[in-house]
């Protein structure tokens, strides 16, 4: 009898534990909701949740924002870009989309089509900025805002010229290099492609891996090259692919891939780059095995803090292979949006205005970031950032230019299947071109 009572008691306890574990998140959410909805004049704090993949300066910005806005607390969650969509879809399914979310071209179309984001067009056009002294949209570089709007071009119709996001910083890609090594080898930052090639050959001879290439951004190099080879057609007619005037069979497209392969065959890139990520490239640079990094400016801070004293950091914009002024990739690659399901859209908007404000970017922590704001001046004398400033001043190639990233599946297939197998000579050029063509046609239909 005693045994039965004990057994029954244990069963009841286990069942209660099971249900309390299941309802745990629910009660936490209820508690958070209670806290969040306490907005009476007694000064209760509203908590807004932010999902971010940018990292870097965000925590400093949040600390400053909370200091200036004691009525708002930020519940910040960082996730790597690789895992962003898995996290976001799980949050969406469970009805817990954060108030403010990072997004970019790869995900924005799906999020807008699913009506998850607040439209910001009017607020940008007529609302005031964080400081309250200018129209919000006018504090951002027009090209940056337009770049952000163009992400929705493929949706057409009701989405033309609309903003569902605001660009956060002007993502700029340039080359960070070891100036001390360059000086010791008698090399200069290249002004043109020929000099760039000569530098790489000398570095290779000296036993270095000349320049970086990482698997997660394997498409950068072809896209840089296409920006040059396709400029004469695509700048005049950005819709050339949609109208069929330009296709993947064009010689300019093929030339971009051929040049990329030639660079690979010459051994300019680390072999580990095919499966390595940005961290691998940073390590190769820090360990002085690879003196040039093609990377965004926000990694300059990590390098500044970690490279040996023998390394002198500097930067230069990548020269153009076809002689056109070189344009950076990026622009409005990083964006923030407000979730339509947010219970605190006003507070969320205040936060988003803050992270796109002069107040936020006029701090020391923002030294290595290009704000993209008209009212924040870039330090032209900063030698570390000179290459990035020059690259940003040259303008940006549109995010969707040669449309290999018009859908997430196409972008991913290009980056993880077609390009590496082309470099490894498992696929030939024509197979790559034909696959891109058929995927693009399927995406259009």
């Amino acid at each position: 009898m005693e045994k039965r009572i004990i057994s029954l008691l244990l069963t009841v306890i286990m069942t209660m534990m099971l249900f309390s574990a299941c309802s745990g998140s629910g009660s936490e959410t209820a508690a958070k909701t209670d806290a969040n909805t306490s907005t009476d004049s007694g000064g209760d704090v509203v908590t807004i949740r932010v999902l971010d993949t940018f990292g870097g300066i965000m925590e400093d910005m949040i600390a400053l924002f909370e200091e200036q806005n004691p009525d708002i607390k930020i519940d910040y969650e960082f996730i790597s870009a690789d895992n962003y969509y898995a996290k976001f879809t799980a949050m969406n399914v469970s009805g817990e989309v954060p108030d403010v979310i990072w997004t970019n071209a790869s995900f924005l179309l799906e999020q807008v089509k699913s009506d998850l984001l607040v439209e910001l067009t009017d607020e940008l056009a007529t609302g005031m900025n964080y400081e309250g002294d200018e129209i919000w949209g006018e504090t951002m570089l027009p090209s940056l805002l337009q770049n952000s709007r163009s992400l929705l071009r493929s949706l057409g119709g009701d989405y033309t010229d609309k903003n569902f996001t605001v660009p956060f910083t002007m993502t700029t890609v340039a080359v960070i290099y070891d100036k001390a090594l360059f000086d010791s080898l008698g090399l200069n930052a290249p002004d043109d492609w020929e000099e760039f090639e000569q530098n790489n050959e000398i570095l290779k001879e000296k036993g270095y891996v000349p320049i970086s290439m990482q698997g997660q951004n394997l498409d950068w190099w072809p896209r840089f090259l296409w920006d040059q080879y396709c400029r004469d057609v695509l700048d005049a007619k950005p819709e050339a692919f949609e109208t069929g005037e330009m296709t993947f069979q064009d010689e300019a497209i093929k030339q971009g891939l051929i040049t990329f392969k030639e660079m690979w065959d010459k051994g300019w890139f680390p072999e580990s780059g095919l499966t390595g990520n940005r961290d691998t490239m940073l390590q190769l640079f820090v360990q002085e095995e690879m003196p040039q990094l093609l990377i965004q400016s926000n990694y300059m801070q990590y390098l500044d803090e970690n490279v040996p004293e023998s390394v002198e950091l500097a930067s230069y914009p990548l020269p153009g292979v076809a002689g056109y002024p070189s344009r950076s990739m990026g622009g409005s690659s990083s964006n923030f949006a407000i979730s339509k399901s947010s219970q605190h859209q006003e507070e969320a908007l205040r936060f988003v205005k803050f992270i796109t404000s002069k107040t936020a970017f006029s701090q020391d922590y923002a030294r290595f970031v290009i704000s993209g704001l008209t009212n924040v001046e870039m330090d032209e004398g900063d030698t570390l950032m000179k290459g990035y400033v020059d690259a940003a001043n040259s303008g940006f190639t549109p995010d969707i230019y040669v449309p290999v990233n018009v859908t997430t599946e196409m972008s991913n297939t290009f980056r993880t299947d077609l390009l590496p197998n082309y470099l490894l000579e498992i696929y030939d050029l024509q197979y790559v071109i034909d696959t891109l063509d058929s995927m693009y046609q399927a995406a259009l239909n």
Partner: protein
Amino acid sequence: MSKTNSKYEAGKSREAALGYAMIAPTITSFIIFLYIPFVNALKTSFYKYNGLGDLVDFVGFKNFANVLADPRFARSLLNTAQLMAISMVALPLGFILAYFLYKGVPGKKIFNTALFIPYLISMVVVGCIWRIIYDPTIGPLNQILKSAGLGSIAIAWLSRPQTALLAISVTWIWRTTPFNMLILYSSLMKMPSDILEAAEIDGANGLKRILHIVVPYLSSTFGVLFMLTVTNALRMFDLIWVMTKGGPGGASDVITSYIYTKAFTNLDFGGGTAASVLLMLLMIGIMIIKEIVTRILRRREAA
């Protein structure tokens, strides 16, 4: 008599009720965490779905057809089979280590602990460590090879299609051998020592004792470890993802990384869940084959 019967029946009912109450938490957790997600996944596999919004675009078996026609799916299956086959090396390796520990070596307790350490490390950490080991420029493996005059084979192990999966398999074997060693060692410890003594007296040498006595004695343990190796290889994801993400160009893509990429990177949840249903059917098939083989072997033994 009827009073006795009814008392008996009441007692049985109480026992049954108690039994059901005791397994209720397990059944409930199975339903919540296994059956409901399974039904949802099965439902999703019949829709075109990007992970956001409701399931509205019913496509029937189209997702299954697309997955089966996808050459990357076939490649991932082949890679999984290769991984499974190479993983079997962990069984004889585990046996060798277990046997040496059983026979007794100096510092046995230290060896026992030290050899088990790889199994205690999280798979993600193992992947990160071995990715650095395999790095062609800064990794210690290539540096050792170059120091030993073997620079010609100091290659980019994880970035070449010919070696990426093999390199991951070596890491997997390093990680799983300790578990096999532990299980086989505990089985060896239960083996009656007089069997081996009798064999020794009868003139059987060491190798014959191992082949004709020890190995047959451990056959059921080997069987269990074999099935665990198969199912673990089918489920392996974290090591692949951390070390190569299925690259270069899909050379180390296994079925689980294919499913993850399809759903979460390509935003094709319908296709991803269709592939996972196919994986489930494959695993059921393997279990059925295993049952059939086990029954045949039992019948032969009984005969």
